[in-house]
């Protein structure tokens, strides 16, 4: 007599057994016992004791997490330096309308936003970013702002691959957002610097 395979039993357990298996299990005591054993094994597996980590890994997680944050912050700071140079070049171009030609208001707005961002970037460097101690709340605000700026920088990098005509309006919007966030960041840092008397 043919009996259910383990796959048949698994399917029966899941309520998906074949017509043959569903008929067979009704009349076969051996397969009924196997199915019952399967149910019991699963129940016993669920009842196995919870295994706990042998040591505290939080210090390692925290160290890695903070290292990543520092890396990310340096990365967008480096971006900022590049952007400052780009803004400087853009400023030179701005005072030479003949070079700019017919680029129009969009370019002017873009250059202005970049200059503002570069100025704010310079202001930020007046504060010791890595050295000063922040309260939990201030650190959270600063981290949030830095993350948002980092996101914008990522998008700016992506946009740089596209044609100039397609991206100008979007670039201006992003740069203006960046300027807004940089202002908030400078304010957050400046407030903290005044507070500790830097």
């Amino acid at each position, binding site marked *: 007599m043919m009996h259910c395979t*383990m796959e048949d039993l698994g399917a029966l357990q899941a309520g998906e057994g074949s017509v043959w298996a569903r008929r067979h299990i009704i009349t076969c005591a*051996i397969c009924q016992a196997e199915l019952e054993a399967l149910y019991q*094994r699963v129940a016993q597996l*669920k009842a196995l004791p919870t*295994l706990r980590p042998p040591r505290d890994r939080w210090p390692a997680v925290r160290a890695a997490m903070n290292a*990543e944050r520092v890396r990310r912050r340096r990365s967008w700071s480096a971006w900022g330096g590049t952007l400052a140079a780009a803004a400087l070049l853009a400023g030179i171009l701005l005072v030479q309308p003949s070079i700019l030609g017919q680029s129009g208001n969009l370019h002017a707005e873009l250059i202005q936003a970049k200059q503002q961002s570069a100025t704010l970037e310079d202001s930020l460097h007046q504060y010791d970013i890595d050295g000063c101690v922040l309260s939990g709340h201030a*650190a959270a605000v600063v981290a949030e702002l830095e993350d948002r700026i980092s996101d914008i920088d990522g998008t700016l990098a992506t946009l740089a691959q596209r044609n100039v005509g397609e991206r100008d309006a979007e670039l201006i919007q992003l740069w203006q957002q960046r300027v807004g966030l940089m202002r908030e960041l400078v304010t957050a840092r400046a407030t903290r610097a005044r507070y500790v008397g830097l």
Partner: protein
Amino acid sequence: MTVAFAVPDVIVARAQAGDEAALEALYRAFETPVYNLARRMLRRPEDAEDVLQETFLEVVRNIKQYRGEGHLWGWVRRIASTKALMRIRRDQVRATESLDEEPGGPGLHVGANLDLERAFDRLSETSRAVVWLHDVEGYTHEEIAEQMGKSVSFSKSQLARAHARLRRMLDVGGAP
């Protein structure tokens, strides 16, 4: 292991803002279930510890993407199981060797009447992963197949083979 950990929304919000104390609170809430899941799927405790650490670094990186859809534990568990499965894939040679070994491994005769935990420990990591995710965590074969990058029938046959081995090791008798 079906777990329903309640993490207050305010902790999640603070963690999303980068608050270290809130991130630690999340870690404390989930360290044991994540380790348990990884340890049940993986043979070596040190691998499970690494998965615990990798999982939380991923949680920290992506907590802002968590929008509150579904239970937070479900989201964390998904990351943990993916990390554990990646480790199994990375150590594929070891897993394949284990997969082909006789149930119970060398030196253990069939019908040694092991207890379930010891028998389960003797399964290959691939089999352990499928059994644990399906039978204990309640994943469907479709979900397991997707996470493992395999077919649904692979997941089903792994589960059946693993149960057949467990059954033989536990010596319940009366093979179908």
